[in-house]
Every structure is written in structure tokens, then in C-alpha cells.
């Protein structure tokens, strides 16, 4: 398992999701990705995107004013 970070700050809907999607494409099952955002819409959108693609949201928090969504990649072979 490897941890990755994605800086999606100052991007607004739907770009945080688009960048998350592009990043996850290159990750393996079990990897964790932490996405930093400033658009509050990401709090709905990234978990919704994870739900439909079968990835797991580990936690959503706020850190120094940024929204942080941590997800675990799950891919079917």
C-alpha cells in the first residue's frame, strides 16, 4: 500500500473529481490517496464518485481550512 497526495486546491467543480479520477487510474488496489480541496462541493462529489466506482472513502476532514478526502483505491481485476 502506498500513500499519495493530490493537490486540488483552488479548483472548482468538477475539476477536483476529474483530477482524482485521473490520479486513481494510475494507482493500485489498496493504495491510499489524500485529496486536498477548497471547493466545498468536493465533500459531496468525491465520495459520490468513489461510491459509483467502488473505491472506499476512509475519512473526510478539514485541515488548515482545506477539505481533505482520504480514499482507498479498490480495483477489480
Amino acid at each position, binding site marked *: 500500500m502506498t500513500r499519495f497526495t493530490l493537490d486540488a486546491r*483552488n479548483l*472548482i*467543480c*468538477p*475539476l477536483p*473529481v*476529474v483530477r482524482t*479520477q485521473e490520479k486513481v487510474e494510475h494507482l493500485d488496489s489498496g493504495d491510499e490517496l489524500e485529496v486536498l480541496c477548497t*471547493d*466545498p*462541493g468536493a*465533500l*459531496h*462529489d468525491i465520495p*459520490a*464518485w468513489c*461510491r*459509483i*466506482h467502488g473505491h472506499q472513502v476512509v475519512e473526510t476532514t478539514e485541515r488548515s481550512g482545506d477539505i481533505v478526502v482520504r480514499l482507498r483505491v479498490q480495483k477489480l481485476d
Partner: protein
Amino acid sequence: MGALSFGAPWNHLRTFYTVHMTTQRKAVALISGGLDSMLAAKMILEQGVHVEGVNFFTGFCVQGHTHAIRARRGDQVTRNNALWVADQLGIKLHIIDVIEDYKHVVLNPKHGYGANLNPCLDCKGFMVQKAREWMERSRFDFIITGEVLGQRPKSQLKRALPVIALESGAGDRLLRPLSAHLLERTLPERLGWVDRDKLGRITGRSRKTQMAMAERYGFTGYAQPAGGCCFLTDSNYSAKLRDLWRVRGERGYEFDDIMLLKVGRHLRPRPNFKLIVARDAGENQFLRGFLKRFTHLYTDSHPGPLALIDGEPSRGEIELAARITARFGQGREARRVRVNVNQRDGRQQVLSVEPLSRKQIPQEWYL
């Protein structure tokens, strides 16, 4: 009519059907976030087809952006409707960034523009073409859209729909489930991948049938249709885009340009510069992301907006810009307001100016 003879041709057809019916077919659905594409996808899902959605991000999309920019604490945070639809349907959604490729559609639409700078017919063809490319890459079988015959001017007229199918290269792999009965049979119908009898015959602008279907499927909370799916249908937005082209002397844009046209009041007091003045805290925050690229002003003695200058004003004109900025702050009635001016090269100055009165700002300055 005589009895059907199951001779050689029929046997062929039967073998063909057996082969094709046993593999689950896959459709890619263009999901806009509105009700029509949601219903179209649902109709096909119900027929046992595997459906995944695609949504193209052109940079001009209405939903999300302005709300995201203007959202303040306590406001309801807006969701991305396309994702919401996919989540409700239980299908995957792929949001695809087409900002670069889409420029060609906006700048050189073969079929021209609608009432504003909306190149709807070219745009639909482009989106279906992108969906076709996705379908081919992902080895899917056909494309579905929520298009309804005669619903919108130009792009959904009966003669327009075949144009979209043809120019996108999708041909008869493009199925519009909501109006299918009013259109030629497509490949998925002819080969029995979907049952044509279960498809729709909706036409026109009334949304009654769609709303009844939504109720039958138990869909609630779907996005209400707005004027158009993108900013290009908006006359104010189009005027700002035209102004940008005129001033630059060429038609073209970068992503940041079209984002900035969505934000703030745009005033052009002189031909050589315009001001973008934030309207609320959310826009202030958004414009802060552009400070390095633009000379910017903010009121120092009173709470007020951040304003960006696009262009090259003279010294005297910078003072005019400061007076306009002061007009939109809380010091608008004060005798003098201190305004901080920050040049792109980092130079700073503080001006003490008299805010312009409402009457001193002619309507023609507003873009």
C-alpha cells in the same frame, strides 16, 4: 400474409441473434445531470444492458461553478448533478476534460450559433463523437443520449438528429431512447440488443411525459431544467466573451479567461482595460487565485471587494479604477477611501480616492 418459412436466411439470423443476445451488451450514456439523460439511461438499464455514463467538461458548464464560487458559509453546497444521477442509477460515470478540444467547436462552429454564442448543433455532434471514441476504446456497443425530438431549437429538430449521428461518426450506434419510435431503427434495435417496443415516443417541449416517467421510476430531487446546459446560451456571458475577442483582436481563449467571465461584475470604462469586481466573499476568494496574473486593487480603509484589472491602464486610469472599486465597497458614501493598488511586478501604492457615485458609472461600462 403467408406463414414464415424458417429457411436458410432465418437460420442465419437465429444463429446471429443467439450469439448476440447471450453476451451482455454495453452502452455508454451521455449524462448531463438533467432528467432526460437520466431517464434514457434508466430505460436501457431496465433492458438488462450494462450502462456507464460519460460527462464532458467543456469549461462552460453552468452547474457547479458559479455556485461553487459564490457559496458562502451556511449556504447549501451544490452537488455535481451528473455524479448525483450516476449515483442514483448505480452506474459508473466518467467525467472527461475536453476543454482544449472544445475550443474548436466554440470558435469555428460549422453550423453556426444559436441565439447567443451557443454552437448547439456542433456541440452535440462533438459530444457524441467523444462518446463514440470512448465507446471504441472501451469496447462498448452503442451510445445513448437523452435527446428529445423537437425539444430545443435547432439541435433537436428532426433534420438535426441524423446530422449529429453522421458527423459524430456514431451512425446507427446512436440511440435516443426517449424518442426512438419517431426515429429510424438503430443497430441496437435491429439486432435485438434492446426492445424497441419498450422505448419512447416523446416529442416537443412539454415535460409532462418525462415527469410522469420520473415518478414511475421513483426519481425525486433531480435537477430542474435550466435555460441551457452551458453559459454560452447566456446573453450576458456571450457579450463578455465577444468583448474579450474584440479587445484582443482575435477569437480564442484560455481556460482561465472563460472562468473569469463567470465571476464578478465586468466593467469596461475605457477601451484599453476592464475591471472585474468581486460581488461577495466567495468571489473575492476565487479572484485571489489570479493575483499574480493581474494588477489588482482592494479597499484598505473600508471593507470592500477585490478587483482585477485586465488590460493596460494609464496612471490616471488606475485612479479611475480605484474610484470604481471604492464604489462597490462599504465606503461608497465616504468622502475618501484608501485603495491599495498592486501591480503585477509587485509594486504597490496606496491611493486615497473619492468613490464614484452610482450616476458616474454609465450603464455602457457594464459588460
